[in-house]
C-alpha cells in the first residue's frame, strides 16, 4: 500500500491549497527582499558617484602607499637604546619627546571636558523640567525648548567650535562653549525622557503639603531619578573627553592642537604617540566612570 493511499482526496486538496498559499507568501517575501536590495544598491551607486570616490587616485600602488605610511607612523625604536635619554635616536624618550607639554595639553582637554559637562549638565537639568510633558503643562514653551535642544544636538560640534572660535578667538574657551551647547542638547533630551518616566505620586505628595513648583521638583523628582541622571552625566563626560580631544584639531585647545601640529610637520610617529596618550587617558576615565556607574545602578536597585 503506497503512502498516498493513506490520504483521501480532501486531505490532498487541503495540502495543495496550503502549498499554494505558502508559495505565494514566499514569492512576496522574496520580491520584498529584492526590492530592498535594489534600493540599497541604488543608494550605494548614487553615493559612489556623488562622493567622487572612483576618481580619487592614490598615486603609487595601494600596497606601496600603505607600506610607506605604516613605516612612517611606527617609531624606529632600538632595543639597546630603549631607555636612553631624549637625544638618543631610537629611545622611548625621543619618541615621546614632548611628553611634559602633551601632559599639560591633556590636562587642558580633561578640564575642557569637565567644565563643559558640568555647565552643560546644569543647563540640561534646568531645561529638562520644562521639556518633560508630565511636569510642564505649557505646551508651546515645551515644544520651543525641545526644538532648541534638538537644534543644539544636531549642529556638528566642530562647526560650533569654528563659529565660537571666530568670536572668542582660537583656544580652549571656544571648545568649552561648544561642549556646553552639545551637552545641553543631548543631556537635555535624555534627562527629560527620564523625567517623563518619573513617578508622579511623589510630586503630588509634595504639592499636597503645600510645596511650590521648585520644591516639588527638588524633593519629588530629583531623589527618585538621581542615580539615573548622574549615570547619564558620567557617560557624557566620557564622550566629551574624546570630543574635546577632537575639537583641538580645529584649534579649540587641548591635546588636539598637538595632533594638528604633528600632522602639519608630517611627524606621523609623533601622531601615534599622542594618539596612544589619548587612548590611555580615555581608558582610565572609562574605567573610573564605569565603576561609579555600576555603584550608582547598584544603589538604585
Amino acid at each position, binding site marked *: 500500500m503506497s503512502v498516498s493511499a493513506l490520504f483521501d482526496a480532501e486531505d490532498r486538496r487541503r495540502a495543495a491549497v496550503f502549498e499554494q498559499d505558502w508559495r505565494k507568501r514566499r514569492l512576496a517575501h522574496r520580491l520584498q527582499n529584492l526590492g530592498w536590495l535594489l534600493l540599497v544598491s541604488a543608494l550605494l551607486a548614487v553615493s559612489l558617484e556623488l*562622493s567622487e570616490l572612483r576618481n580619487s587616485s592614490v598615486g603609487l600602488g595601494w600596497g606601496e602607499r600603505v607600506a610607506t605610511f605604516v613605516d612612517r607612523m611606527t617609531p624606529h625604536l632600538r632595543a639597546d637604546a630603549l631607555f636612553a635619554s631624549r637625544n638618543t635616536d631610537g629611545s622611548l624618550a625621543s619618541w615621546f619627546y614632548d611628553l611634559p607639554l602633551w601632559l599639560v595639553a591633556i590636562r*587642558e582637554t580633561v578640564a575642557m571636558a569637565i*567644565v563643559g559637562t558640568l555647565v552643560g549638565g546644569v543647563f540640561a537639568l534646568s531645561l529638562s523640567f520644562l521639556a518633560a510633558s508630565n511636569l510642564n503643562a505649557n505646551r508651546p514653551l515645551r515644544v520651543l525648548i525641545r526644538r532648541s535642544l534638538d537644534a543644539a544636538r544636531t*549642529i*556638528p*560640534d566642530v562647526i560650533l567650535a*569654528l563659529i565660537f572660535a571666530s568670536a572668542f578667538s582660537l583656544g*580652549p574657551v571656544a571648545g568649552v562653549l561648544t561642549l556646553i551647547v552639545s551637552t545641553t542638547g543631548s543631556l537635555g533630551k535624555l534627562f527629560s525622557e527620564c523625567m517623563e518616566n518619573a513617578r508622579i505620586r511623589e510630586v503630588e505628595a509634595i504639592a499636597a503639603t503645600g510645596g511650590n513648583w521648585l520644591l516639588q521638583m527638588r524633593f519629588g523628582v530629583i531623589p527618585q531619578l538621581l542615580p539615573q541622571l548622574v549615570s547619564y552625566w558620567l557617560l557624557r563626560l566620557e564622550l566629551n573627553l574624546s570630543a574635546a580631544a577632537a575639537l583641538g584639531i580645529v584649534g579649540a585647545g587641548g591635546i588636539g592642537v598637538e595632533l594638528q601640529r604633528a600632522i602639519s610637520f608630517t611627524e*606621523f610617529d609623533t601622531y601615534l604617540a599622542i594618539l596612544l596618550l589619548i587612548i590611555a587617558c580615555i581608558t582610565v576615565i*572609562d574605567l573610573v566612570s564605569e565603576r561609579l556607574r555600576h555603584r550608582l545602578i547598584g544603589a538604585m536597585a
Partner: protein
Amino acid sequence: MNDTVALSPADMIARARARVPRAIDIPLRERLQPWAIATATFALFIACCIDLDLGPDVLANGIGKLGGILAAMWPPSAGGQWSRLLLAIAQTLGLAVLGTLLGILGALPLGLMGARNLVSNAAIHFIVRRMMDVFRGIPALVWALILVAACGLGPLPGVLALAFADIPRLGKLFAEAIESVDRRQRESLQATGASGSLVIRFGMLPQVLPVCLSQCLYYLEQNFRAAAVVGVVGAGGIGFELNERIRIFAFDEVALITILYIVIVGLLDEVSQRLRARLI
C-alpha cells in the same frame, strides 16, 4: 487606644524612632556626604576654569562679538550657490552611506569573533573585545586628520575615517546582539539535525538581523553628522563649504547652510525612526 493615651511623649518619640530609625537619626557622615561631593565638584570646576583662563571678562568680551556674528547671520543667504550647496549636502550623504557600509563590513567579522556563544576560545574573545573597547574612544575627526595626510585630500580619507570610527562601536553592538540570542531556537534546530550553517541561518539570523539593522540605521544617521565634521579637515562635502564660509566671515551663508542641514537631519531622523520601528 488606652495605651496610646498612657504613653508619655518621650515614649512615643522612642517608639517612632525604633519604628523608622532613618527618619530622624541620619548619621552626621551621611548628612555631610552630599555637601562634601558638591563642594568638591565646585572646587574642581573652579580649578578647571582657572586652568583654562575662563573668566567673566573673557566671556563678556566674546559674547559681544558673538552677538555681532549672530546679527550677521540674518537674513540667511545662499550667496547664489544653491546648486553647489545641495550637491555638497548630497556628497556628505554619500560619504555617510559609504562610510557606514564599510564600517558594517569591517565590524561583522569582529562582532562574530567577539560573541561568547560563537567563539569558545576565551583568549580570542577577550582580545577582540578589549581592542574594540580601546579604539571605541577615537573620534572620526582624529582618524580623518591622519588619513588625509596619508591618502591626500578627497572623499577617500573621509569614508575610511567614518568606517574606522564605526568598526569598534558597531562590532561591540553586533557582538552583544549575537550574545543575547535566545539559545532555545538554536537548540531546537540542532535537535532536528540541521547543519551548522542552517542553524545560524534559521536559529540566529532572524533574531540578530533586526537588532543589527536598526543599529546600522542609527549609525547612518550619526555618520551624516560625522561626515560633515570630517569635511572640515579636507574630505569635501558640506563641512568643507561651512569651514570656508566661517573663515571668510560669510555668516549669512553659514546660517543658511546650518538651517538646511538641520532640516535634512530632521528628515533623515524621521525616516530612520520609522524604519527602525518597523524592524523591531
